[in-house]
């Protein structure tokens, strides 16, 4: 990372984070500050360490060793690539899973309203489409009022059209609830479209860090968008010839 952004009272503060699997270094001295409400997308090839960084922040990495400073808020929520709804619980019960508050039901209904699933509250998850399941997973994350939302390729398993709808939904939810979001993706356009800041992870280090600074909703056809896209694709080692296969400007 080039310089200290100097965030006051950040949501996430990471300094010199190192993670090893056995003897293999997966994260190699990561420094990262996330402001409250900041939306960061994390790009990188498979094996670059993006998922490891995400898992370190979720606290789900039991079998790793390493060192470094890691400060994350207590109120965290995770959205996985698969919606991971319990098939034996109805959608509403999945959303409020583990919540003890007396008004959990009402809040569950409210969260389902927000993601447009209120009609499916009593459905079994197996009856929902992939996009609907992921909406339910978003509701399950949001109902916990997270200060930090961690999303591991949340739209990676969805078809292109559903993905566009989910992008709009995530933007809306982020604007309304303002959690800090760290979203792992390997889709450059998705990253530039949604995030305030996009990071590139390469062999366990952050090698590119760009603030997008365009008003939302963003138009992939603008030169500024193309500029960001080119920068990240080049850093990912995708040559201009490779890109010509795919001139439409949409998903790969």
């Amino acid at each position, binding site marked *: 990372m080039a310089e200290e952004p100097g965030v006051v009272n950040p949501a996430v503060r990471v300094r010199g984070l190192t993670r090893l699997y056995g003897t293999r270094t997966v994260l190699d001295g990561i420094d990262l500050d996330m402001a409250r409400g900041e939306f960061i997308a994390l790009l990188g090839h498979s094996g670059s360490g993006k998922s490891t960084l995400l898992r370190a922040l979720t*606290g*789900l990495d039991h079998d790793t060793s390493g060192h470094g400073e890691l400060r994350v808020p207590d109120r965290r929520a995770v959205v996985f690539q698969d919606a991971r709804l*319990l098939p*034996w619980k109805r959608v509403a019960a999945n959303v409020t899973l*583990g919540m003890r508050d007396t008004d959990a039901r009402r809040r569950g209904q409210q969260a389902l309203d927000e993601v447009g699933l209120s009609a499916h509250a009593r459905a079994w*998850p197996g009856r929902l489409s992939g996009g609907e399941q992921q909406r339910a997973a978003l509701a*399950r994350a949001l109902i*916990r009022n997270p200060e930090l939302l961690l999303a591991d390729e949340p739209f990676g398993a969805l078809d292109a059209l559903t993905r566009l709808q989910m992008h709009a939904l995530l933007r809306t939810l982020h604007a309304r609830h303002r959690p800090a979001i760290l979203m792992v993706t390997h889709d450059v356009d998705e990253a530039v479209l949604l995030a305030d800041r996009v990071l590139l992870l390469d062999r366990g280090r952050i090698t590119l860090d760009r603030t997008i600074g365009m008003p939302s909703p963003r138009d992939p056809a603008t030169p500024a968008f193309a500029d960001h896209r080119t920068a990240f694709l080049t850093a990912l080692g995708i040559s201009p010839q490779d890109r010509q296969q795919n001139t439409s400007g949409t998903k790969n």
Partner: protein
Amino acid sequence: MPPTAPDNALAERAHQRRTARRYPGRRRPTSRPPQARHGLRLGPKPRLPFAGAVGTLLLLGVWALASATGTLSPRTLAPPWTVPGTFWHLWTREGLAQHVAASLRLALASLAIGVAAGLVLALLSGLSRVGDALIDGPVQVNRSIPWYVLVPVAISALGIGDTMKTTMIALGVYLPVYLNTHAALRRIDARYVELAESLGLSRWTFVRAVVLPGALPGFFLGLRLATTSSWLALVIIEQINATRGLGYLMNQAQSYGQDDVVIVLVVLYTLLGLISDFLLRALERRALSWQRSLGS
């Protein structure tokens, strides 16, 4: 290019010519829904009506025919039409109802005890490492002991009364419940474990909301196997020092060569097995109604 009407008509005529060649002399239906000529349908087709009963009825028919023509001597196997008459005789003269009730009581009591024991042991050893260390080893050893060789051991330890009989049937019942429930508890999907951790669930909530419902299909599998075992064990155990029950009647019929009574008893055991399986399936469908939303 979208297909035009003449194209379709041409294709239709070509299809008719081909089918006529393939099925000479057979009339083609005059109208058929417009569709592309399809290849062989290789996937499973819907079951024929009453598919479950056809084979059984056919076998019964063969049996009846062989008995009627004398191919099957009544001394080898009593003819099937003796069953209603013999049944009526047993019911009105020999107090068949009490015998059935006695057998049912023994079987159900032992089944309940065995299922409860299997379930409790599976939970203890599936959910705690201490329980696993204490319980799983002995049960695996028990599994490799053929059930029948324990009969003399049980008789010398518990006598030949109902205590021994209940114990022996329960011993046959608890194993499938334990093995299948334990395996299901151990097989809990790592993704759900991760989810539970990320949601910060307490251990108890995790067990109640994730582990137990996830293991329920395994438990039901064990329960169905256990019920089958309980009837098998009942047949064997009942004949020891029997004074009442279906096993007693079976002993008597064997001693006096009443082949028709033996057949009636076999039919009764079959009905008990079929009815219990039917009830369990209904219970399972209710308890696991969420599963139907996955497959189809």
